């Protein structure tokens, strides 16, 4: 497959994952603001921004609706949902011949949905419905991607984009939350902490899955364990790293070129780190550093994928 095509598919998928993450966090944060806890709206907004990477131009102005509107529709801000959907569609348009018609139509529909006056109107009447319909659109796209596309290299690049973005976003989210949540060990019975924890899980669509594994007995340590180390839940970081590993293996198998040892080593190290560490060890040690290291390693994987599959030098390619 052409490197440019792999690149476009990868970014198409990353952008959609990013859009979905932003929508979900906004939805959860706005839900939490309904309860009268001690935490102010501004603090919540800032926390959400921190977990979205502290984008510029999204400073709290005191009006939730206008802030939310900006985060969804401001297509000049690289963090906005519209910006991400535009990016995904533009990338898809450049590889129109590689993706299925169903994929293109779904993405196109989502794009037009974001830009229609109807979307703005719906946002006014019910923000929740508006956000839910964006998520629906993204889910439909993912569904047809899995069912209508050949599961070859292109599809693997889509998975790489999805999982790398998810690993990075989840690690960032946990890093932001860990400061005030995983440090306190005494149980708070006011109910507000319960809501906070549910919120964190819902940011990763993992509340129901968590309950299936641990019952509704929410504890910060278990939540950390679930979101970091669970091997069966698609939003847990360990699962996504497994996914990255499989995608790279599959690309190598179909392409017949061995991935560089550096890339397999970085992925292998991260995989082992998540596979052979217990949550007790993580909490006893420097939790923030552990989470930060996950972020750095996913960035490193991204760079190596680029250097090896997309922007390699001609000399190095001719040598092999």
């Amino acid at each position, binding site marked *: *497959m*052409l*490197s*440019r095509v*792999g690149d476009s598919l990868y970014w198409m998928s990353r952008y959609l994952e990013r859009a979905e993450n932003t929508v979900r966090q906004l939805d959860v944060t706005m839900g939490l603001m309904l309860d009268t806890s001690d935490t102010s709206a501004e603090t919540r907004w800032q926390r959400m921004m921190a977990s979205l990477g502290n984008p510029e131009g999204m400073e709290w102005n005191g009006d939730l609706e206008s802030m939310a509107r900006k985060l969804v529709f401001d297509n000049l801000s690289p963090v906005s949902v519209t910006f991400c959907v535009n990016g995904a569609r533009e990338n898809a*348009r*450049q590889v*129109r*011949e590689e993706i299925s*018609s169903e994929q*293109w*139509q779904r993405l*196109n529909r989502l794009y037009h949905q974001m830009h229609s006056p109807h979307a703005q109107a719906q946002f006014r009447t019910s923000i929740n419905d508006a956000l839910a319909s964006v998520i629906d659109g993204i889910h439909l796209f993912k569904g047809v991607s899995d069912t209508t596309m050949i599961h070859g*290299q292109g599809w693997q*690049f889509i998975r790489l984009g999805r999982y790398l973005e998810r690993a990075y976003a989840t690690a960032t989210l946990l890093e932001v939350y860990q400061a005030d949540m995983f440090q306190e060990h005494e149980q708070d019975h006011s109910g507000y902490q319960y809501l906070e924890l549910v919120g964190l899980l819902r940011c990763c669509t993992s509340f129901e899955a968590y309950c299936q594994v641990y019952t509704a007995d929410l504890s910060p340590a278990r939540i950390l364990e679930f979101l970091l180390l669970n091997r069966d839940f698609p939003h847990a970081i360990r699962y996504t790293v497994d996914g990255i590993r499989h995608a790279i293996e599959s*690309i190598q198998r179909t*392409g*017949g*070129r061995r991935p560089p040892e550096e890339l397999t080593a970085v992925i292998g190290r991260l995989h082992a780190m998540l596979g052979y560490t217990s949550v007790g060890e993580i909490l006893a040690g420097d939790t923030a550093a552990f989470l930060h290291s996950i972020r750095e390693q996913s960035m490193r994987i991204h760079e190596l994928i680029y250097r090896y*599959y*997309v922007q*390699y030098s*001609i000399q190095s*390619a*001719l040598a*092999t």
Partner: protein
Amino acid sequence: MSASQPVEMDSLFGDYPLDNAFDEMREATGEVRPHYRALAETLAGLPQEELQRRKQSADLSFLTQGITFTVYGRDEGTERIFPYDLLPRLVTAEEWDRIERGLTQRITALNHFLRDVYSDEKILNDRVVPRELVYSCKHYRRQMRGLQVPRNVYIAVVGSDLLRLNTGEYVVLEDNLRVPSGVSYMLTNRRVMKRTFPQLFHSYGVRPIEHYPQLLLATLRSLAPEGRPEPNIVLLTPGVFNSAYFEHTYLARQMGIDLVEGRDLVTHDNIVYMRTTDGLKRVDVIYRRVDDDFSDPLIFRVDSSLGCAGLFNAYRAGNVTVTNAFGTGLADDKAVYAYVPDIIRYYLDEDAILPNVKTFILSEEKQRKHVLANLDKLVVKAVGESGGYGMLIGTQSTARQREEFARQIEANPRNYIAQPTLDFSRAPCLIGNRLEPRHVDLRPYVLFGDKVNIVPGGLTRVALERGSLVVNSSQGGGSKDTWVLE
């Protein structure tokens, strides 16, 4: 109107005007031509609502398939649905036979001409075509002199534009020998029409065109460099902002080949590679949809980022086939066009089967004077342009436009030619609920590899505005399916 026709025909035709122009469907007397009779009867027998329903379903089909083209010069909404007409244009077997023979003859001769001009220059030495005319052509490529082209095929993919005069005779208006487009519309039109009028299609016995991508692939394969039995064939596109990008993606998908941009290609030791996720992969045949000028910044325009540096040298070394060859625009220059009948006679010793349109060469003083005195009756065209740009239609022009063109002609006579305003044929189109005649041309697609191959059909372009003579899609034209009958 003849009394033998069913009553419904009256309401369908309404005030369908017949005049001097040849009408594809009706004789001068108003009688429906025999081969159009089944179509007319089907239309007359369909309730209005049913016709509109089919129209809507066809619309939807174009929309969801994303059959679009790009209009330049607008910030927003640059992707447009290609307008089309629901009714097929019918071509009888005899008509097609003449077209096929005529085009085969013409393309063969033009290919001889290109090979000769870029090597021995016999035709110039024999003064059949003026040397100055060739050397002053904007698309003449000095770099092609003495270069051996694979199988001596310069023009593997051609789309020539035909018109039908009021005598019913087909003439060639122009040859597109560089990067002709539109074939994807021919193919998608057919797909939609088969779904819209399945019974009618079946009863007519229409010759198939769907194998065009396969023929194109075979043509490209036949031109691969020696010693490359499993050639890697790619389609080179300028990218997503090109007006024909839809067609590029469509053809690449139909042929199962990679769609590459200049930035995907690199050359090393005169070999062209494409960058893949598995490393560099050698490229053997490039079906080029990028103009000469933009193909290689080392040889042609230095400011182009669409092409691939080093491509031309790899081509010269015979390591890669690029088709169409560079410099083929020489032979579709509108002034060289005037000499095509002589070119055919010179190389093939035959008379042209498909005649030319009368063309005035403005670098010749006598002809120029005549043209300048009659600008209001003639059509003036810039020789190196296409797509309906750089054109003056005398009968529909203002005095100021004519003055402007006269000035430009005086300043650079070689750059223009003039032709009489042609009253070319009209075909019935569904406009609202009625049939109305609109001017049409016909662009068949010719493939030239081991031999000349023409799929029976082509793109019939329609000037959708009443009375308009301009059929180019960039200027508000549309298209209709073309049925060549058994």
